[in-house]
């Protein structure tokens, strides 16, 4: 239709394009973004990317140091370590991503309701949040996995629970701000039900700090997961995960097989660092006071 063409022509300058340009200018965080993309892609396509089957022993090369055949060496049974790290990355990203997403959704809903409604509901939610925050996050995660067992799902739940409070607080604070905006009143005047005011009009205006928080939380989730597994409270063999591989490698250190704990450990460090760098950069970019710089 003619009218449709008119509208397309007059399309506003994309907000996304400007954002992208500013992100690119920050070299370090842009590199972090690429590193994360590579890690995610490798995890996603693990069966095709990994040079070997991660569980297939190479009888000719047990405990082989890094070399041309096995780039990152092999373990006690001759399993290729690079392939194992790539496959283990799936577990890491899946659990960290699932925990973060779950905590984000739950925290956003609780925080939005508490902030919008206020009153006793707010009190109940915030006091529950406070009591979760009273525990050191890692100790709480340990306690939860110890109590409910350590399947993939349970570990994700344990990590997620420790993260929920930060989202609740963040979203509640943002809701207290946006619900006083005139457009919140306008939305009510037009005849929106409360649910729609919160979901359509208010929550989307709270998103930028949430993105930052979620990015930083991803790093934390990976670290927590690794630490839990290192202590044997997280993922257990035969499934593997970076922290648990590091733990295994550490017990081999007396044999001189340094590559067995160094490389999984490096995988953790690089991933966590990349998430933190990206989160910091996003925080700077999304801060309204930094606009136009």
């Amino acid at each position, binding site marked *: 239709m003619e*009218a449709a063409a*008119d*509208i397309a*022509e*007059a*399309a*506003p*300058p994309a907000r996304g394009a400007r954002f992208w340009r500013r992100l690119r200018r920050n070299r370090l965080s842009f590199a972090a973004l690429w590193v994360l993309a590579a890690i995610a892609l490798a995890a996603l396509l693990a069966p095709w990317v990994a040079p070997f089957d991660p569980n297939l022993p190479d009888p000719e090369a047990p405990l082989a140091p890094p070399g041309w055949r096995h780039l990152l060496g092999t373990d006690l049974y001759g399993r290729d370590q690079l392939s194992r790290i790539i496959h283990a990355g799936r577990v890491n990203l899946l659990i960290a991503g699932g925990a973060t997403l779950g905590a984000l959704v739950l925290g956003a809903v609780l925080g939005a309701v508490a902030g919008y409604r206020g009153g006793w509901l707010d009190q109940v939610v915030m006091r529950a949040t406070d009591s979760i925050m009273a525990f050191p996050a890692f100790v709480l995660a340990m306690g939860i996995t110890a109590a409910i067992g350590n399947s993939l799902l349970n570990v994700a739940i344990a990590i997620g629970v420790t993260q929920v409070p930060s989202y609740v607080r963040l979203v509640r604070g943002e809701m207290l701000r946006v619900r006083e*905006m*005139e*457009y919140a*009143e*306008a*939305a*009510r*005047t*037009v*005849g*929106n*039900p409360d649910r729609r005011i919160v979901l359509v*009009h208010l929550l*989307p*205006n709270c998103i930028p700090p949430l993105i930052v928080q979620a990015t930083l939380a991803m790093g934390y989730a990976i670290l927590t997961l690794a630490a839990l597994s290192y202590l044997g409270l997280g993922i257990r063999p035969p499934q593997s995960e970076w922290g648990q591989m590091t733990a295994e490698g550490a017990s081999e250190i007396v044999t001189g097989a340094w590559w067995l704990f160094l490389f999984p450990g490096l995988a953790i460090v690089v991933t966590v660092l990349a998430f933190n760098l990206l989160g910091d950069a996003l925080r700077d970019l999304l801060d309204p006071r930094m606009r136009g710089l």
Partner: protein
Amino acid sequence: MSIVLRVERLVRHFPLRGPAAWAARWRGAPPPAVRAVDGVSFAIAEGETLGLVGESGCGKSTVARCVLRLLDPTSGRIEFEGEDLAALRGDALRRRRERLQMVFQDPTASLNPRLSVRDMVEEPLRLHTRLAPRERQARVAEVLEEVGLGRELMDRYPHELSGGQRQRANIARAIATRPRLVVLDEPTSALDVSLRSRVILLLERLRERHALSYLFISHDLATVKYLAQRVAVMYLGSVVEEAPTTELFARPLHPYTRALIAAVPVPDPEARRERLVLSGEIPSPIAPRRGCPLRGRCPLEREACAAEPPLREVAPGHRVACHLV
């Protein structure tokens, strides 16, 4: 002419919290409150514009927010199309909003930054009508054209619009469902002077075309004079004078109204005018009031002013709350 909105003895107090309230309870005194609106009554006929004027802080916006039930009135009746809005809640109230809309003062703050003009104007139609998507789009285009926003602006976001365009978008949202009454809360005070007159003309044209009624809230007497058929003057939470516009400007009776009108700048240095000047400042709306609200500021004060003056009809359609008239 049929009455669209009738407000009767509307009261809205904002109770104070904290030490002052505890102290009052300790003494057994009535709980302290900001008496923002203290017994306001008025009516608006179909197709009529009632101007509600007064200084900042006199309670005009609180009246507007009570009429729309953005605030719950402390007491009083808000009769809209024969039904008491003050008694409605939940879905029943929400459905009335199809017929009762508002244009806010700040055209920027009252637009959700994440909704395009199209989404924003479409929303009330989505909520209140059973129009098919195609019909809705047609109505959106029609309404935008009515307020003078071109099609090319339909998919813009608020930050991509100028101030005048933003206020037009606000007006479009308010009239999309073809309401009967639109509350205009200082719709032009955030605009610069050149835009002001255009928005006023637009509002006037829309009123004529759709037989809208306006409750026009302003502190700008010049726009009120142009737009309103009747004017109510508010001071410290109550209406002190109400009259047809020409009557009010030609023959203001209440000392406060006279002072307001005398304060309007006139672009003629030769003009001789009555000068009635009030002394002092608006008293605190927290202090319990005895007698005339203007007591202590009025140069014409008598002993009779210690008693609260009733709002009396002194000429057809002209009501004043003053002992001296």
